[in-house]
């Protein structure tokens, strides 16, 4: 053997050893419930995936230890109806590719013997994963994908506790209606959305709701995600200058959009965003000074800690892991795992069908969650119809809840530069 052969051989041996080593530690502890979590842990959304890991680990801490507050799964250590079984999460990376998500779901079910699945952020990965779960009779808790289509395939093992894009968008238009009723001028809308499934779905709902409720979409810009330049796109927005700009962008494009708008001297009258990039800390770290008054829909608000003080404790636990506050995504990922663990506990079993029935029978008051939902129940399609979103406004370097009125802590500043 020459040096090159040794190099090649040694390299392959190393990978094999890594694979076998990982296989060995798979041996399941006696009293343990294993849940598979599939997130984008590399690629363009790896930052979200990493936060999902922190959120899941925080949830595990809450489930496996005993806390003196009434959040789902907090009081008891472990799952009492399974003899105090501890919950463990196995993470898998889908790299934003549906095929990899599907194959990881199958691996987690057949090799890691997971009791349930959670994930996947990307809607186009959640779709094939939900099918795998259905075929193996393993519940899939869709924590943070918001494409409305996901709950329309008639799947029995699919559950989504958080709102979908239609519910999120309806909240935005409810807010517009409310502001209009107060005599504010909101007539024209401008849509700005990226060209993958998230932006496409979001804009489709926005267009149809605008039509139904009598708003005029004066400019609808669909752009290529991760484009090196958004100058011409912003020029179109500036020319139309709508009363409200409604962006649906991931973090990367959101940063570039805000910078480009500032550079071209375009200050939108109002911005009401479909979260994603506009809910990410990275955007406010980068251009927070340009974003005073921006409104974003969200599935979570830290303001709720005034009503439910344990949210502050949960946030501290999360912050220890990630050095950040809970946000739109991490709150859903954390809560999703709690919802799942609670159902497994109520089922008192690791059997997929029993957990499914327990999930379907879920009926938890909002006060036992960290979310602004009305309550936690699942419709026959697996969607929680009472998952009400909130609108947050970025003021003085932080987000405050402005809508709906029952959770709002302050009045919206409208127009945003008032």
């Amino acid at each position, binding site marked *: 053997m020459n040096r090159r052969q040794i190099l090649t051989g040694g390299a*392959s041996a190393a990978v094999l050893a890594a694979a076998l080593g990982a296989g060995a530690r798979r041996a399941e502890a006696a009293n343990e419930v294993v849940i598979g979590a599939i997130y984008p842990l590399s690629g363009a959304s790896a930052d979200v995936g990493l936060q999902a890991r922190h959120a899941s680990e925080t949830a595990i801490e809450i489930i496996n230890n005993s806390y003196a507050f009434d959040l789902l799964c907090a009081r008891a250590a472990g799952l009492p109806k399974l003899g105090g079984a501890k919950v463990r999460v196995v993470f898998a990376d889908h790299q934003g590719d549906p095929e990899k998500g599907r194959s990881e779901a199958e*691996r987690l079910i057949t090799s890691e013997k997971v009791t349930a699945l959670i994930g996947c952020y990307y809607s186009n990965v959640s779709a094939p994963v939900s099918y795998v779960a259905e075929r193996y009779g393993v519940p899939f808790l869709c924590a943070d994908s918001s494409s409305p289509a996901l709950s329309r395939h008639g799947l029995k093992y699919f559950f989504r506790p958080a709102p979908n894009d239609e519910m999120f968008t309806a909240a935005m238009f409810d807010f517009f209606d409310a502001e209009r009723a107060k005599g504010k001028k909101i007539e024209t809308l401008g849509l700005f959305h990226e060209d993958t499934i998230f932006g496409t779905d979001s804009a489709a709902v926005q267009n149809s709701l605008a039509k139904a409720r009598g708003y005029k979409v004066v400019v609808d810009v669909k752009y290529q995600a991760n484009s090196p330049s958004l100058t011409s796109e912003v020029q179109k927005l500036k020319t139309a200058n709508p009363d409200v700009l409604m962006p649906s962008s991931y973090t990367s494009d959101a940063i570039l959009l805000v910078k480009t708008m500032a550079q071209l001297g375009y200050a939108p009258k109002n911005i009401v965003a479909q979260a994603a990039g506009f809910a990410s800390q990275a955007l406010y770290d980068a251009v927070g000074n340009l974003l005073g008054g921006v409104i974003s829909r969200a599935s979570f608000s830290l303001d709720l800690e005034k009503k439910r003080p344990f949210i502050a404790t949960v946030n501290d636990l999360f912050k220890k892991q990630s050095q950040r506050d809970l946000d739109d995504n991490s709150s859903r990922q954390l809560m999703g795992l709690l919802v799942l663990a609670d159902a497994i506990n109520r089922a008192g079993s690791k059997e997929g069908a029993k957990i499914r029935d327990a999930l379907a029978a879920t009926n938890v008051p909002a006060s036992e969650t960290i979310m602004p939902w009305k309550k936690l129940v699942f419709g026959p399609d697996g969607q929680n119809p009472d998952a009400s979103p909130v609108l947050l406004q970025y003021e003085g370097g932080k987000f405050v809840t402005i809508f709906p009125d029952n959770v709002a802590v302050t009045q919206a500043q409208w127009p945003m530069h008032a």
Partner: protein
Amino acid sequence: MPHGEAATAESFRSARVRRFLVAALVFAALALSPLAIRSVYLQNVLVLTLLYAAVSQSWNILGGYCGQISLGHGLYFGIGAYATSVLFVTWGILPWGGMIVGGVLAVAVALLIGYPCFRLQGHYFAIATLVIAQSGLVLMQNWDFVGAARGIQWPFGPDSWWTLQFARAKTPYIEVSLALLVASWLATVLIGESRWGYWWRAVKDDALAAESLGVEVFRSKMAAAGVSAFFTAVGGGVYAAFLAYIDPDAVMSFRFSLLFALPAVLGGIGTPWGPLVGAAVLVPLGEFSRSYLGGSGSGLDLVIYGALVMAVALARPQGLLSLVPRRRAAP
């Protein structure tokens, strides 16, 4: 070239027989492998390995034998995947028919592209194929009839060979991918032995010299492109049935175009076994490193995968296949 000498002709014939015997043994072993490999995960890796081997073999026909480096085969793969999915989901046409339609469509597109592009040399050709494939991706992403960015979800049906849908079983997909690999292998070897094969190699070695010797350079390239595109598209159809969900990024991004060339190059470009050997190393490498190291989110799996691709490329530039000792140099 062997002369008319009886002994040489005899040894040439026996070498040919041996070659097909070896092939029959390898493919038979692969066909029976699901009996030994029971893990769903490993079977899944096997499906992908065989499918990538088959598509890489198709790429090899144009890139390896004819020497026209395409960085746009993702386009043909996407055409196959989309034709199969649209025909099945919209009109209920069985995927088997869809794959053929996709294949024929891809041949038409390949010839349409080849007509102007085969006048280009080297890197200009490669970038042209890349640019055309990217244009296809952009168009699919915005074409509402095929679901645009939302993609196409295959309906949830019972297990059936007709619809090529199996809820849990992987064996059928292993056999279908293997069949495609055998077909593309046979096409490569048989055409490689024919007059076309000699033309392709002549074009690859020196197109100008070949032209002066009366080789129909342009027609050779077009033929190679057509055969290559056909099998690639059929592979796309199999992939769509296997995944039961497609969207533009998931079947025709630039990544695919690279991943189809990679096994052939690392296994042994322009050889009939190179793509299979390359895929057998690359696909499990990618899957294992992601599955067992990717969950940490640290990026280390990518470091290892990238380093190994680099190491293989540099350590065995003539391909991994060259590690296998040969009795004599290939003709």
